């Protein structure tokens, strides 16, 4: 690369720098985003000696520009001449790491972390580590905050003296004057612990962890909870009790709900990190308390973890712990005053049945499921219904069907259309588990009623639902139960309902197959081409285009083509357009046309069919007719 500097004189640095200084922020931003191009034009040497000093000294700009710059510099190593020169990038990144705007600073730190890996061990000590130290002892909080994220990347690759200094700096920042820096340090504590030698984890990290976990600000304390997971993972089991548990216990009972929320939120990770013994002795009571917390936020976070927590309990007395300690709390949560808590529980509670087995499920869990199925909040009911498969595996869904039906019916008629939408989405799943007879008897009418809902999104979902049902129950079932009703709507006085017939045909034709499509659906579609509403007519054109591939060529030629041609000369502009579209552009991925095209126009790709002129297309159809007849 260095050899290609011959035409550099064409691009005096001043011209390029002018671009970086352009008055218009947008143009400046564009230039910065193409900084690599500028660097390339200058060559590595002048990038190092002219461009970087300029960037370091004179850039005072809008944060958006600085963000782009910070990102660019992370990928600049080759442009300054490779790893041996990578330290040239440190000065501009250092000043970016002191900027107020968090996003810019974070990006600068990210880039610094990236290029730290490209430093040789020597350069790391000579150039990088001093930078970290400078940041760590900066006057304004921003540079100290940035320093927190850099310790862990240089620590593993420096000498033991420097290591000691780094540990000292980190310690200092953990007890910084400003909460912003303490928060940054607390959030990097786990990461830093991972690169430290075990002896220092025990001697240094634990005391810092303890201090941060009892900080005066809850925003700092809650971050210590996150670190707790990493630290507990690093320590040998026998040290956990003395080094970690006192702090964790204290966090679980913190006076700030934010800290308790964090504990609840990280509960599964904590459980894995401390192991089965401590879980049994400490975490079980702590979890009970969180499930009974006075803040709904905390209860909901804990309720979300019920299944995972139970799953990860030591198997030898899992059932006993759940039955005597967890289940009583769960029972209370079923009638919690807060709907978010109930709905969080409803989203996981079904999972307990696989853990507890058939008998316990029937005796203890089933009443809870049934209660939640009758909950006043639709979200709770939905969450239960959406997880029915777990129960189905254990006790079969029949146990629930008596309560299930009223719940489903109620949701199906909920005043909020999004609730109706959600229950429709579970219909195929329910149908599969309840079986075809139950479905025909109880749910079929619901599914048909959705087709004439006054909200389009519901009608659309109902259409899609029918398709999935047909896929599940087969064409014959469709022919007997669904198709007649769908086709009957073609005579509805409401044009929206007539259109629904067309949308259903679009969705169902493939699943129903050629026979039903040609014999039952096609006549209806063709008849609707005389509809007085233009919207219906152009949807006829669209439908014909869609079902074309399923029809046999004879039907296409003798029935579809004349109708489309008639529509193509309709008085309405849109009808004309869609009819012409249907004539000229056969649907892509068509199973009918493509192989044929491949036969006729051999070396060409099947996609070419889409560019055929109408006449060619009809010729292709004719040819098909000839071969199949």
């Amino acid at each position, binding site marked *: *690369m260095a050899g290609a500097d011959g035409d550099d004189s064409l691009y005096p640095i001043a011209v390029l720098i002018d671009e970086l200084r352009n008055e218009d922020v947008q143009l400046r931003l564009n230039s910065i985003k193409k900084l690599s191009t500028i660097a390339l034009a200058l060559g590595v040497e002048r990038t190092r000696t002219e461009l970087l000093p300029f960037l370091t000294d004179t850039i005072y700009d809008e944060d958006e520009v600085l963000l782009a710059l910070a990102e660019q510099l992370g990928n600049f190593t*080759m442009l300054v001449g490779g790893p041996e020169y990578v330290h040239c990038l440190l000065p501009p990144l250092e000043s970016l790491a002191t900027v107020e705007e968090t996003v810019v600073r974070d*990006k600068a730190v*990210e880039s610094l972390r990236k290029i730290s890996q490209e430093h040789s061990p020597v350069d790391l000590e000579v150039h990088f580590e001093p930078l970290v130290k400078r940041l760590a002892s900066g006057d304004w909080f921003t540079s100290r905050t940035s320093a927190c994220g850099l310790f862990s990347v240089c620590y593993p690759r420096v000498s033991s003296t420097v290591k000691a200094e780094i540990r000292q700096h980190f310690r200092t920042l953990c007890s910084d004057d*400003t909460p912003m820096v303490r928060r940054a340090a607390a959030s990097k504590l786990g990461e830093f612990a991972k690169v430290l030698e075990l002896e220092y984890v025990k001697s240094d990290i634990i005391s810092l962890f303890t201090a941060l976990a009892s900080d005066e600000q809850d925003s700092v304390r*809650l971050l210590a909870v996150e670190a707790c997971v990493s630290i507990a993972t690093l320590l040998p089991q026998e040290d956990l009790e003395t080094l970690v548990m006192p702090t964790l216990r204290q966090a679980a009972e913190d006076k700030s709900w934010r800290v308790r929320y964090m504990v609840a939120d990280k509960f599964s990770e904590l459980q894995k990190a401390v192991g089965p013994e401590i879980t049994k002795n400490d975490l079980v009571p702590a979890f009970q308390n969180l499930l009974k917390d006075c*803040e709904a*936020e905390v209860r909901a976070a804990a309720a979300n973890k019920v299944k995972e927590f139970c799953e990860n309990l030591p198997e030898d007395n899992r059932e006993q712990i759940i039955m005597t300690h967890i289940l009583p709390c769960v029972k209370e949560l079923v009638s919690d005053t807060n709907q978010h808590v109930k709905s969080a529980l409803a989203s996981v509670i079904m999972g307990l049945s696989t853990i507890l087995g058939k008998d316990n499920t029937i005796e203890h869990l089933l009443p809870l499921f049934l209660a939640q199925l009758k909950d006043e909040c639709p979200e709770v009911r939905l969450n239960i219904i959406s997880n029915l498969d777990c129960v189905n595996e254990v006790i079969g869904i029949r146990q629930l069907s008596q309560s299930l039906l009223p719940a489903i019916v109620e949701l199906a008629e909920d005043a909020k259309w999004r609730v109706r939408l959600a229950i429709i989405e579970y219909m195929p799943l329910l149908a599969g588990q309840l079986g075809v007879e139950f479905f025909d008897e109880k749910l079929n009418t619901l599914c048909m009623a959705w087709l004439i809902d006054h909200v389009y999104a519901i009608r659309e979902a109902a259409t899609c639902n029918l398709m999935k049902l047909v896929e599940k129950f087969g064409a014959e079932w469709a022919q007997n139960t669904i198709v007649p009703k769908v086709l009957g709507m073609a005579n509805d006085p409401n044009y929206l309902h007539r259109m629904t017939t067309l949308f259903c045909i679009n969705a169902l034709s493939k699943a129903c197959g050629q026979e039903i499509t040609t014999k039952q659906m096609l006549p209806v579609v063709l008849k609707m081409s005389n509809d007085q509403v233009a919207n219906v007519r152009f949807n006829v054109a669209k439908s014909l285009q869609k079902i074309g591939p399923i029809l046999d060529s004879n039907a296409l030629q003798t029935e579809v083509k004349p109708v489309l041609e008639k529509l193509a000369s309709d008085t309405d502009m849109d009808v004309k357009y869609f009819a012409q579209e249907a004539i000229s552009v056969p649907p892509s991925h068509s199973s009918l046309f493509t192989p044929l095209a491949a036969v006729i126009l051999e070396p060409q790709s099947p996609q070419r069919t889409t560019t055929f002129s109408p006449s060619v297309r009809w010729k292709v159809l004719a040819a098909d007719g000839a071969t199949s007849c």
Partner: protein
Amino acid sequence: MMGDRPSPPRAMSSAATTAPSVDKVDGFSRKSVRKAKQKRSQSSSQFRSQGKPIELTPLPLLKDVPASEQPELFLKKLQQCCTVFDFMDTLSDLKMKEYKRSTLNELVDYVTVSRGYLTEQAYPEVVKMVSHNIFRTLPPSDSNEFDPEEDEPTLEASWPHLQLVYEFFIRFLESQEFQPSIAKKYIDQKFVLQLLELFDSEDPRERDYLKTVLHRIYGKFLGLRAFIRKQINNIFLRFVYETEHFNGVAELLEILGSIINGFALPLKAEHKQFLVKVLIPLHTVRSLSLFHAQLAYCIVQFLEKDPTLTEPVIRGLLKFWPKTCSQKEVMFLGELEEILDVIEPTQFVKIQEPLFKQISRCVSSPHFQVAERALYYWNNEYIMSLIEENSSVILPIMFASLYRISKEHWNPAIVALVYNVLKAFMEMNSTLFDELTATYKSDRQREKKKEKEREELWKKLEDLELKRGLRSDGIIPT
């Protein structure tokens, strides 16, 4: 790296549930419906159901005992008032709640009128009683995106007691017998820190009391002043750069306004830093409208103290000028006018170029309120006089936009305003005006040519990149 921002758990609907929250996303929910649901009160997060009823032994009234026994009884009453009741449970402890309320009332009256009650032993008991009642973890915010203009704030349930405690504390601080030298042992940094955290309360009544309390403490405890300022800094910085959520920003700014007023001259570096690194960035926050008046007041206070700060302030505002929010842009223009009202001509000259480049952009904003607000500057006599003095610099900056809008702005009112401005310029400096009119076209052409040159430069650079990129990959041998 965004993940490293210590974010407190958000409100319920997004944080706690995995399934879509049906209530929140329903496009048909109306504000009025939501409001009805939101009109509820909340209580502190400290109550765990205690279950047991609370019993306080009724004490005689202070006025009914001899003066010599009053201090003793006063202490006893303070201790009783440390008991905190659960107001979310509207049925529990009704009698005792009423008893505490009347006792607090009595205490309020007592500290207002009595003399000689403030023994040294009383200080720790007063502070203890106040701490027990007011310091509490604020509960989670009910709504995720609380819109103070639309939504009703959630009110503090225990207000019947809390209000009296605040009232009592203020009377105590204001009492003639109050001695800061004794009180400072108890009203310390830790106390202030907890007090500041309470400013996040959603209840505006509580924030109003807090404002008075903090103001009195700032006034009476000289040793705490620097600490209070620093902690407010931290709250603001966290608000701007981390959470964007804090209910008491306006109240804190109001206190700062009066604090800035009292700064001695020359200003300390610390204060200047506060202006540039904290107050100016506060303009970037989304909810600026909630505290803009107070913020602008603080800024103007600073500039009246030390006019040399004008340049960094205006440059700061220009740096953070809103790009997409027209409402905020109008606020910025309003603030800028307040600043220009007090600007010194020597400072004006230093900043006029970047300033009027921005104003010229505002004037040509398609949003008529922005354009209108900017054009109103020409109705301000002082600003007009500054523009007139510097018309040779300002007119060339403004001319192109004014000329263009006069021809093509959609809003007739704006066009009319622009005509007036153009007329004013013509009268100010007709020679320059004619010159600019004459060269308008050629100037535009020159700009276009420059633009083209830029494009060509970049095209060449990109070709080069392609060539070099290939070469360095070794595809084209050199």
